[in-house]
Structures are given as C-alpha cells and as structure tokens.
C-alpha cells in the first residue's frame, strides 16, 4: 500500500462511486437508528467485496456505530454494553496504531499521540484489556470521541473531500526522526552530486582549452588535420583524470558533456574551429563536421568502454526527446549527429572488406572505437523510438542495420515506415530516404489507407469511400472489441442450454459500453440493487447426499478394499467407543 497505487490508474474499491460513499458517511453519523443500520448493512456488503482489504477505519467505525445502536435500543444491560464497547475500542486503538509500529514495539501512548489521539483513550484501552473494566459512562464518552476522530481524520478527508493544508505539515511531523534522517541523507547525496558535477565541468573545460590550443595552431597554418601532434603531457594528464572520474561517475560526466558548449558546440566554438555554421544542414540525415569529431576523439577514445558508450547513447536519445523548438534545432542536429557517429563505429566490418589498408586506416582513425562493442540493441531501439524527431528514420535505419541479430525484414520495414509517418509532420521537407515507399509523399490520411487496402485485396469490395464512411471509420475500430457471436454460434449455444434456466443474452446491447457491474437501464444509485423480497434456502447436509451418490458409482466396487480402511478412519475414536458401548447393550 504505497503511494504509487493512487497514481493515475485508479484504485479498486467496494463502493460504486463517491455519491455512495457520501451517503454511507451521512447515514453512519446520523442520529437515526434505521439509517445507521442501513449503513452497517452496506458496510457488511463492502466487506464482502473488499474481502481482506477493508480499510480499518471503515471497520472500526462500523463496530462503534453498532455499539451505539445497541445501546440506544435499550435492550442490553450496562455490563453487556461495557463488553461490547470494550471490544470495539480496543480494536480501534490497536489497529489504528499498528501501522505506526516499527520493528521495535513502541508504547501505544506515543504512537497515539502522533495520530492526535489523546492519552485518555489509550488508557481506556489499557483499562479494558488488563485492568478494572471502565464504567459504561466512560465507554460511551470514548466511543463518541473516537467516532468524531474517525470522521475528522478519515471520512471527511477521504476521496478528495477536503485534504486540508495542515495535512502536509502533520504528515511531516509524523515520523520525525526517520524523516529527518532521510532528509539529511538526501542533502549529503545532493551535495556530493554537485561537487562531482563541478569537477566534471572543470575537467572537460580544461580538456577543451588544451584542444583548442592545439587546433588553433593548425588552423592558422592550414595543415591537414590528420597531422595533429601526439597529445601533450598536459593533455595526457587531463585525459587520465577524466578517465578516472568516469570510472566513478560516468553518468555525471555524460550529463555535463551533453550540455551546450561541450559535445554540442556553440556557434562561437564552431566558428573558431572554422566550421561554416550557415551550412544548409539536412536535419533528417545528421552527421558531424569532421573537425568537431576529431576535437573530441582523444577523450572518447579513452572512454570507449561498453558501459560508457551504451550510457552515452541512451542519454543522447533522451536528449532527443526534448521538444524541438526552433532554437533547439542546432542542438538536435548535433545530438543526432553524435548518435549516428557512434552507431556507425559499430558497423559490420564485413561491409568494408573491399577497402585497402590505407583506406581502412583512415576510416578507423576517425572511429571512437574500432572493434564492435556489444551494445544492448533492444534498449537502443526502444530509446530511439521513444524520441521521435526528424532524424529518427535515419537513426532507426542505422540501428536496424547494425544490430547483432537483425529483426525480420518485414518488421524492419514496418518500423521504418511507421517512424517516417510519425515524424514527417515535423518538417515539410521530406527526407528522401523515407521516400523509398514511393507514392505517399504527403500527409498520411485515411484515404491513403483505404487505397492501400484496396490495392492489397482486390477481391474484397470495400464500401464506397464516401466522406460519411470515413467518419465512421474511427468508431468502427473500437467496435472490434465487442464480441459478435455469429448466428451459428448463438444457435449452438442456445441448443446446448435448452431445457436449463440459462440462456445466451440476445438483447441488442453494445456491451462494450457497459463496464463490469453496469447493465443497460440501471440507475447510478446502488439502492436499485437492494432486495425487498427473497427466499432463503437451506441445503440439506450435502455430505450425506454425496456419500450416497458415490455409493452408486460404478467404480466404487473396484476400490472396495481401500475404501474400507479409509472409511474406518472417518470415525473418530469417540465414535468408535460410542458404538462399542452401544453394542454391549445387546
């Protein structure tokens, strides 16, 4: 019974709706005996529905109200009533404090105090359990107080009817020590996180500085990039530091990398690297400028463990999920570019078997890692599909292609198609790579689906694709859920049931519209389900009947020897001695 149960999905309860809850509450606290009794009966039905999950507050309230009704009836003596009240009160105090108990038993008084139950109620409970029984007067007082407490703390606050602001403050004060401890722990954890974040930032910035210096020299002299010098001593030291840091908190490192100005370079950074930022980049087929890749290569080559790469990819995909604003386009492009780059490194080597040694060398130089890394492709696939954007079809294709164990071809195609349909609206300029299917360049509509269907199954005559028909298309889809029994099945079932009181329901009812527990024409008010007349049936001792029935069984004779020993034991010793005693009389 944690908080999560109340999240979104709803919780299954015994009452039909809030109206019923309110009615039962009203009846319980009315001074009218008949109404109170009615509420108790309803709660007995709730208990039947709830089985073991009846809330203890409901149960306690019912017990106490029952005492009040019996008290007011005037048919019981004071001593009877003290016993009744006593049980109800003891159960209330024990059950309500039960949840507060930790592993070590704590005094009830303290637990009750937290719940704002006064000490005298707890003392009353102690009196009932192991001291002199209290007087009826005290019992009545206690009952009245507890009922009020239940109304205030449970009934009137439940079901969203008045969760007051002071509630929060109270719940905090509830578990004082534990709460404080937890807060302290959280604080420490957060502090640590901030520190490592700062450190990661510092390390990466110093890396960037070093790299910029190295690059600047080259850019000025306009030498080919491939001639970059071996990393300086400073650089080696920084890289070692970063590597060490990544061992402990790769997650934080990746988070920092992901920020603007690191692996997603700012415009200024790009300019200083000599990348033309006004390039007409194609957002659907992202790729990184080589300079940017090479800028980061020394770092990434050092960190190319399986775990790190997997984490990096997943985080990159999470980045892609952010809503793509116009100013974010640049960022999206680079994020997608990095994903594409990393996945490309995992390309099957067999594709390159034709290339020369030098070609391979050149290619591998730009790779973050050379040997294929075992990635968790399924997760990546899911991550990719979770972050639909203009580049998704491109990335998806890459993933599908390089997976260790590719999916069936038709599945691949379907996925690609779906993703292209889904992402196409984001940009009017449609990706040429997703045009492979040809005809549908525009927006997908129902018409195109109809057309497709028609071309697929020419034998099947579709109804004319009028506008009204298309409007129906959607409801038709959900109608699928409704079970439609064919006349044959109906007839068959009816034949099998003939002569019995059972029938297949043949009413023209859209059952899918009616949730479990509702039938057409039924009122919302649960009073319609109350019985005013019914008959009671007492079944004869079924046991005897069945025993006779088995006697007639054909196979009973086969197992006769066994049966005798079994039946012999069916008599208890008492039975046997009684029988013996009876025999001696004759």
């Amino acid at each position: 019974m944690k908080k999560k149960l109340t999240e979104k999905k709803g919780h299954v309860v015994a009452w039909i709706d809030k109206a019923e809850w309110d009615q039962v509450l009203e009846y319980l606290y009315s001074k009218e005996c008949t109404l109170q009794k009615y509420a108790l009966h309803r709660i007995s039905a709730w208990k039947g529905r709830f089985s073991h999950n009846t809330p203890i507050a409901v149960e306690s309230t019912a017990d106490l109200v029952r005492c009040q009704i019996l008290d007011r009836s005037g048919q019981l003596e004071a001593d009877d009533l003290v016993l009744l009240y006593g049980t109800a009160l003891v159960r209330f105090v024990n059950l309500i404090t039960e949840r507060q108990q930790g592993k070590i038993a704590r005094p009830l008084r303290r637990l009750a105090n937290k719940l704002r139950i006064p000490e005298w109620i707890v003392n009353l409970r102690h009196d009932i359990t192991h001291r002199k029984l209290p007087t009826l007067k005290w019992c009545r007082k206690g009952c009245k107080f507890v009922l009020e407490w239940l109304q205030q703390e449970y009934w009137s606050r439940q079901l969203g009817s008045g969760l007051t602001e002071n509630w929060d403050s109270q719940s905090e004060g509830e578990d004082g020590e534990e709460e404080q401890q937890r807060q302290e722990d959280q604080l420490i954890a957060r502090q640590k996180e901030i520190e490592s974040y700062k450190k990661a930032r510092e390390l990466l910035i110093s890396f960037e500085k070093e790299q910029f210096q190295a690059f600047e020299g080259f850019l000025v002299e306009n030498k080919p990039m491939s001639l970059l010098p071996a990393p300086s001593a400073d650089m080696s030291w920084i890289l070692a530091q970063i590597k060490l840091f990544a061992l402990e908190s790769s997650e934080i490192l990746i988070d920092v990398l992901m920020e603007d100005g690191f692996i997603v370079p700012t415009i200024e950074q790009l300019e200083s690297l000599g990348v033309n930022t006004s390039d007409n980049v194609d957002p659907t087929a992202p790729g990184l400028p080589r300079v940017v890749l090479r800028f980061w290569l020394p770092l990434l080559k050092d960190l190319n463990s399986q775990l790190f790469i997997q984490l990096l990819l997943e985080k990159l995909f999470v980045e892609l999920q952010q809503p793509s604003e116009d100013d974010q386009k640049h960022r999206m492009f680079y994020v997608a570019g990095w994903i594409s780059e990393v996945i490309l490194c995992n390309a099957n080597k067999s594709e390159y078997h034709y290339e020369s040694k030098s070609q391979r060398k050149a290619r591998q130089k730009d790779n973050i890692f050379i040997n294929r890394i075992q990635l968790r492709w399924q997760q990546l696939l899911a991550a990719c599909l979770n972050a639909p954007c203009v580049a998704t079809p491109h990335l998806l294709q890459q993933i599908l292609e390089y997976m260790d164990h590719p999916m069936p071809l038709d599945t691949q195609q379907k996925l690609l198609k779906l993703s292209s349909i889904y992402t196409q609206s984001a940009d009017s300029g449609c990706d040429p790579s997703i045009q492979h299917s040809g005809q549908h360049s525009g927006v997908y509509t129902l018409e195109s689906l109809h057309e497709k269907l028609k071309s697929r199954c020419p034998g099947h005559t579709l109804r004319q694709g009028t506008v009204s028909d298309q409007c129906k298309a959607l409801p038709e889809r959900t109608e699928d859920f409704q079970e439609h029994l064919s006349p044959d099945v109906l007839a068959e079932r009816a034949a099998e049931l003939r002569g019995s009181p059972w029938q297949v329901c043949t009413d023209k009812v859209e059952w899918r519209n009616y949730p479990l527990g509702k039938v057409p024409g039924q009122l919302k008010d649960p009073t319609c389900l109350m019985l005013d007349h019914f008959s009671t049936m007492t079944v004869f001792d079924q046991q005897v009947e069945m025993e006779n029935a088995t006697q007639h069984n054909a196979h009973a004779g086969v197992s006769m020897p066994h049966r005798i020993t079994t039946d012999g034991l069916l008599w208890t010793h008492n039975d046997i001695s009684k029988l013996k005693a009876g025999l001696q009389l004759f």
Partner: protein
Amino acid sequence: MKVHKAPSKPEHMSKRPHCKDKWYKLNRVSNISDCSSLRSDVAKIEKYVSNVRKDKHNLKRLKKGAKAVCFRPFNPLALERTTTHPSLTNGGAGGKEQVSDSDESQDWCSLAKSVLHQYFSGKRTEGKDSSLSAEVSPGRMEEEAFFHCAERDHVHNRTVLVMQPGQTLCFRGKCLLSCLYGRVEVHGFTIEEGQQSYPLFSPSSHCPLTVTALGDSSNPSKTEKEGRLVVKAIVRKYLSTDTHKRLLSEVYLDSCIILLEPLDTPLTRFLTSFPDLNELFGLNSREIRDNSAILDTPLSGIGVIPLRKSSEGMFMSQSYREALNGLVNACAEELDGCPVIIVCGAKNVGKSTFNRHLINTLLNHTACVDYLDCDLGQTEFTPSGCLSLCTVREPLLGPPFTHQWTPEHMIFYGQTSCETDLDRYLESLKFLWRLYKRETPIIINTMGWVKDFGFQLLVDIIRLFSVSHVVQLSSGDKEICPQLTTDFLRSSHGWHTHPPAQSALVEDGCGGHSTQHSHTLFSVNSEFEGAGRQGEMRHQRSNELRDLALLGYFSQMQSPEPGPVRPLHCFTPYQVAHSAVAVRVTHCEVAPTHMLYAANASLVGLCCLNEKVSGRGGPVLLSQTPVCPCVGLGVLRGVDMIRGLYFLVTPVAPSVLRQVNCLLLGAVSLPNVLFTGQTGIVGDPPYVTMDYSFELSGAGKFRVFKGLARPGQMRNSK
C-alpha cells in the same frame, strides 16, 4: 523408512566418449563424400522425418529410454525386454500403442533409469567427473555457443539450435519447442525427436526454465551414415542453404537439435495486453541488475532470452533428486494399488516446483497422473480458492497461470486459506477423494500452513487418504514441523482423526489398528537461494500470482485466432433468472438485503447443488455454505433488477453451464486491472476511484505485525 539409495557407479558412462570418437572419424570422411552421393537419399529421409513428426502420441513412450545399462534390475523380465525394446519402437507408431503388462513394467524400469541418468548427467555437469566434462563441453550455453550452434531463419522466424549432451539452455521468455533430433529434457519431461511441439513459459515470476540436452541417442539401428543423413535433411528442411552448412559442422551423432518458434496464444496475448504485465515474459529485476541476460542472440527474435551462468536455473539438492528417484521407483514397483504421494512443507520451500517436476517425470512413461490440490493459496490448475482433483496428461512446462485447465472435479472453497472453516475444508477434500478412481498414481499437494491446526489437518489428510509416500520439504536448519514418520503418526492427533487409544489396543490385542497403514517418508531439504522466503520481485508476491492465475483462467475466453484482445466487459453474457440459481457469500456475513449489491461485478464460483433451486420469483439465498461440485468461475457482469436476471461472463462451455444452479462468492476477488483497464466504456467505471488516499490514518487494510506469532500464520501471506 528412509529413501532408496541411488546406485553409485554409472557403468554406461565409459561408453560415451567411445562412440563419440567414432563419430568424429566419420565426420571427417563423410564431409567429402556425402554431398554428391547421398543426395538421392535425402528425399526419402525427409519423408521419414516428416512422418515421425506427424504422429502425435497420446501415450508418450520414450524410444530411447531403455538404452542405458540397468543398474537395478527391478524385474528380470523387464531387463530382458529392455534389450529388445528398440526394434519394437522403430517398427513404427503402431507398436507403441499396445500396452501389455510387461510393456508397462519395462517402461517403468527405463523411466527409473532415465531419472538416474539425469541425476548423473547433472552431477557431471557440475564438473565432478572432470575427465568427461572437459571433452563434451557441457554446461550452460553462452555467447560463443549461440554464435556457433544457433541459426535463425528470418523468413519463417524460427531458430534451430544444436546442443551437445549435457549442455543446458536456461532462459526467460516463451516459445514453442520441438525436438528435431536427439532428445532434450525440460523440467523433468523428456522431449524427443518426432514428438509434438510443446509450449514453454519462463516468466520472470518463477525460476527460469532450463532445456538440457540428453545424450545416449546412440540408436543402434541408425548407423552413423544414416544419422548424418537424417540430420542433414532436418537442418535443410528448416534453414536456407547458406546457413545450414555452418550449423552442420557442429552436429555429432549424440547432439540434439531443437527448433524454437515464437509462441503466441490467447493467454500470452491477454496477459501482455495489460501495461503492468507486458514485461512478464522478460527478465526480473535481479537478472537485469546482474546483467545475466545474453542479449542479441539468434533467439531474441523468437521471444527467448538466454541467461548466463550467473543466474542459476532450478537447483536440485541431493535429497531432492533422491526423493524424485525414489518416487519413480515406487511407481514402478507398487503392485498393490497405486502410490498415493503427498508433498508437504512450509511456504516457499518449492512444493509446487517439486510437484511439477514429479508430474513431468512420471509423464515420461505413464499416460496420466492424478493430482489432488489441497493448497488453496497457490493452486496449480485453477484460480486460488478452489480445491480440485485433476488428471494430468500434458507436461507442465511453465508456472500455474500458464496451465489453467479445467479439472475433472473441483470445489469452490472461496478463500485463500482454510483457517476460518477447517471442517468445510476437510469435508471438501473428502468429497474430492471419493472421486479418485485409484487407477493412476496420485500426487497430493498441500498448503504451506504446517503449524498448529494446519499441521493437524496434514495429519488428517495422511490418515484419511492412506498415503503411501510422504515428501516433506524443508529449508534451512530450523524445523517448522516434526518429521511425519509412520511412528509419529501413530501417536499424533489430527483435527478430525485421532490415534488409536491405548486402551483400545490393549482390549483388542491385535485389533484392526495394529495393522495400521505405513508410509515411506522422503525428507527433502530445499537448498535453492531464497528457499523459505517469499519472492520480492515483481510478479512474485503471492497475491500477484493469484491475479495472474485468474487472468490466465479468463484468457480462455479470448478467441484462438489472433485479433484484438477483448476486455471482459465486451463479451456477450449468459443470462439466468434470479429464482433459478442460489447465491451465497462464503467468507463473511452480508446483510441479505444487500446481497446482490455485494455480488454485482464479482467473481463467482459456478456450482451445482443436488437439489432443485426454485425461488418464488425473487432471488434465492443459501443459509449456509454447501460442499458441492464447482464447474468453473465466472464474473457476475451485471444484475437486471427489473427483469430479475443475472448476467454472467464465463469461459465455461454452455453444455456444462446448464447444470449450474448456485453461485458462490469468495474472498478471492477479480484482479484490479480488470476494473481499471476497462476501455471503451461510457462514463466512469464503477468501483474505481482516483481519489482514495492511503495517507490517511486507517485507510489501509489490516497489517499483521510480523514479529507476532499467531496460530493463523497463513494470514501473513495475504
């Protein structure tokens, strides 16, 4: 009365490497020649293979079970027959159907041996017989192995896997397994070439399933050459040319070839349609944490995720194997009537796993085994709250919710523990016991309540049902209940039964009781990790398992053809007049006027009273809970007060439903997802609220204090 000792030295093992060597030689020679010269034979063999695959045996008999040398001649005749067995079975399917007496005993004999064999092959796997294991490379299949030994046919989406004897595949997921060549064992059940496909379910709620390749398929009638051809034909049939070559190089005469196909049934469709359950056939949190799954294998597209060694499959302790072995022997030996086996022990010690294993092992040689389920909380074939007697004909290759079959006889008890009404519990069991025909061995599964009254009930059951074998499982050192020896039973009191009084014995001298029934006791110590504790991961808690069983039960309503999954409220209901069926709530007192309110949208047991039910127009309420047969469960979908009708949805066939005249309600309620997941309805679903706050004091249900020891120990599991 201790267990039968397993013979210590397996003689046949010296045979194995020998025949392997031979095959190696042949391998080299035939590689050159077989392509051209033998092509003409392939068609013939393909035909043979398909023939073998086609015939389904109701009565399953292992063809090669008798291969190993008999360690323990139970019966000289049987031993002699053993040697002639292969010729008989190879003659064709017809031979297998004749069940003569000696045939029977011979089967039992070989069955006993097959268990022994498993025992030793299991030992060998653990590396104790190092000389062998190094060569055969047994053990868990890991990345390398999948790379070499598995090929996936992308067109038909199926995977062929070659396994060497002793190799195991432990996995999560679900699939359809057929054995193409050789034979494999899954949870005690042996599947060999030519048999039907079996569905395997290995969801995260239970211990993962393990497929073990068995050796000794050295069928003398099959020469190496022939064997080679058969293998080739098989692999060709299932794989395209470019892939099958590579696989063939991994195949030896004693290898096994299995085919794995995706499994899609109404059950899996229905279960995975619930968002909370869509990872049911995936990894559990621990396997994810330990990174024990081998992802991206040729099996992943099939729905099978192999696990690394780090995640242990089922662990069978020494005493577990000995008990299993002893029981198989007992079923072979018992001449005076069938064995009555009872399996008992505290909660979570592996009773039902042992039961499944035992049933599967017995099914290797007998057509059916009876099963009396006395465990209300974790039932095997029915939703919980039911007691049942079931004749098992199919192996159990998955947890209970994957085989919710209609039992032959069932009684609706209505609660997940029996403590509130011990008498009715015992009466119900006696009722079922009388319907047992005593023609097959029976296994009695008991509840995990083995203290106080629970223990007394256990004593009663052993006495009343003249149990011949008691399997008592325990975990750890702490003894929860005393050993149920015959001596102990002579003096212990049950709830209904009592030991013969001393006075009676003295008076009678050698009265009827001195010849009291005696039984064999097997004490099994469960040594698997987490024994005696409830699983804490998703889908492992007992209430989640109960929900799964119910969902499994109602999945029978889904149509067998693939299509949209229908929520329960979309089905066309059956209707019956209020006056024609009696209603009763079994677990608490409900005010009669509010009875239909309590019954609306509830789970009901569909029961048959002997008496005719006819109310005077209005509903009929029973004054006490009867012990009567139950034919299944349904959901009381709605109540029409104006016309006086109940609407019911149920998977029970109409021909059976017609007998139903009593609806019993119990404390087992419908899974919450059936209420919260209703789609397409108009308006808000009743009985569902978004606003219930569990933060308020008293909002929760009873919570029993863990440190508190109380007689109703079962309550903890609720």
